[in-house]
């Protein structure tokens, strides 16, 4: 817990001790087999402390499954996941979140009946120290920490310029705002690794470019590692420093955006093999 990154105002202020240290995430030979079917196998990936990484691949390649393995929605059947050097084997989703992984979901999973601010405050639950007695008796510590949590929630919402919608029910927000709120909620648990599952799904090109700016701004404010799944190549090539391509549960390529764009295996996976006679 002590190694968890705390939000600092700018990238220049990343604590020295964290800069030179080992990667935040190491997947070694990760695999998931269900009923003899290999959903993911031999997944090796390393993500640096402040890296923005992309995970791409055709539909059904196993990208979301990798996220579900990292967040322990599924327990891997092979290999290991090291978060900040610590093996997460056997941990629950709650435990890996406390260790520093937060995520968004491909199909939006907000707390629809709660207000926007409350959605964010739910993610702060473990950071709010007052107990049952304080909340039932409304002791001063209850009030102090509630005010503090609300102030922090509004501050986080202001990254996406959503502070004015704080009291609306989350389910009433437009689609794009719901996606942004999911990112804010994930940030509210102060992760050191943020997993974004198709953040630009259903957005038009101008909304997508806004999202790119927002993710950059998040990365400036919180110098954390971000890993994203996305089908919008424009966004991926713009944002990611490293890209990993998955097909049929296996990694077929890893590298910088330029490497990936010219990799024949990737082109084949997306567009199919050219026929011999046409070459």
């Amino acid at each position, binding site marked *: 817990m002590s190694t968890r990154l705390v939000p600092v105002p700018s990238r220049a202020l990343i604590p020295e001790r964290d800069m030179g240290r080992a990667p935040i995430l190491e997947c070694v030979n990760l695999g998931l087999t269900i009923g003899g079917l290999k959903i993911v196998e031999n997944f090796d990936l390393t993500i640096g402390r402040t890296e923005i990484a992309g995970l791409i691949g055709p539909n059904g390649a196993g990208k979301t499954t990798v996220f579900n393995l990292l*967040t322990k*929605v599924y327990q891997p059947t092979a290999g290991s996941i090291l978060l900040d050097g610590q093996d997460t084997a056997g941990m*629950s*989703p*709650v435990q890996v*979140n*406390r260790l520093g992984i*937060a*995520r968004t*979901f491909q199909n939006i*999973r*907000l*707390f*629809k*009946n*709660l*207000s926007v*601010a*409350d*959605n964010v*405050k*739910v*993610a*702060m*639950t*473990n950071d*709010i120290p*007052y107990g*049952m007695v304080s*909340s*039932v*008796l*409304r002791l001063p510590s*209850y009030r102090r920490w*509630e*005010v503090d*949590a*609300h*102030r922090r929630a*509004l501050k986080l919402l202001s990254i996406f310029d959503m502070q004015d919608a*704080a*009291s609306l*029910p989350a389910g009433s927000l437009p689609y794009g705002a719901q996606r942004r709120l999911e990112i804010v*909620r*994930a940030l*509210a*648990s102060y992760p050191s690794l943020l997993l974004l599952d198709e953040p630009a799904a259903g957005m038009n090109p101008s909304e997508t470019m806004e999202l790119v700016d927002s993710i950059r701004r998040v990365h400036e404010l919180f110098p954390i590692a971000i890993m994203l799944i996305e089908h919008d190549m424009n966004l991926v090539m713009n944002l990611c420093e490293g890209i990993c391509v998955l097909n049929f549960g296996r990694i077929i390529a890893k590298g910088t955006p330029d490497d990936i764009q010219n990799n024949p295996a990737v082109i084949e996976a997306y567009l199919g093999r050219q026929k011999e006679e046409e070459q």
Partner: protein
Amino acid sequence: MKRLINLKRSEYRLMWGTYAAVTLAFLVLQAMIATRSLSASMRGMLVPICAYMVMAVSLNLVVGVLGELSLGHAGFMSVGAFCGVACAIILQKAVPAAPVRLALSMGAGAAAAGLAGFLIGIPVLRLRGDYLAIVTLAFGEIIKSVFNNFYLGMDKAGLHFSMLSDTTGLLKGGRMIINGPMGIGGIRKIATFGAGFALVMIALAVVFNLVHSRYGRAFMAIRDDRIAAESVGIDATKYKMIAFVVSAALAGAAGCLFALNYSTIVANKFDFNTSILVLVFVVLGGQGNIPGSLIAAAALTVLPEKLRSFADYRMLLYAVLLIAIMLGKNSAGARNFFARFRGGKEE
């Protein structure tokens, strides 16, 4: 923090409005009792109404706020009733002041029911949805069977208990407290309307304050999306257990209050029908709607009494009216009508 106050204003208005309305109703009824304008049958129903209100509010915490269906709520009422009344009888000599004894008994009933809630919660809260509902139903029946076969007596040597048959072998001058299927007899009716009012207010304060705290947010997050809640570090089992135990403890206090209003109490009173009755209060009042639970509990407790003049057709009419109320409440027109009163209430 003006902003915080602004954001929560509608919630606070609902909360203080409920406190005010309950207090006002209490004062009006007290005035009616003082001026003898309340019929004897209505007077006799005041304490049960308070007990049912607390039952409905506490069940609403599990069904409405946490989103898990519990069909065994009367079981906790039963635990509270038997443990609370036993405590009242044991303390009869030690604590002569009835209000103090009543408070201690309700505390004991709440503690016993809370403990029962914790123990039952360990297996039950591993389940979800329909499965959880069925298992709570089973536990409600188990509690009923246990009290039907439980014998507790007190004599000079102390407390004696036995199961299945009465082998307590009390000394001369000893007193049987719980007598198996005969339940507890000869209870001194120390429950008062004032105590009922106090318990309703305590239950309201506990539930409202809990719902508006980090605990309530966690409960509602689990209700809306458990997977998302776990992804942001909410330990679903722990928070479900907290809601379950608080709900059981309040039901236990209500059960004790209820039992101390009668001279005899038997385990069969707290059966599946009672659980369903309380669930009907919650559903009719609206899931998660605390004032709604209060109104529904009061109305549906008074209704059968008011229908007494229809003699044989009483329960038939009650059922028909219940169907009509449910349909009416869910019609679009009625909903718009009520929405006007709610105004800023967040739903």
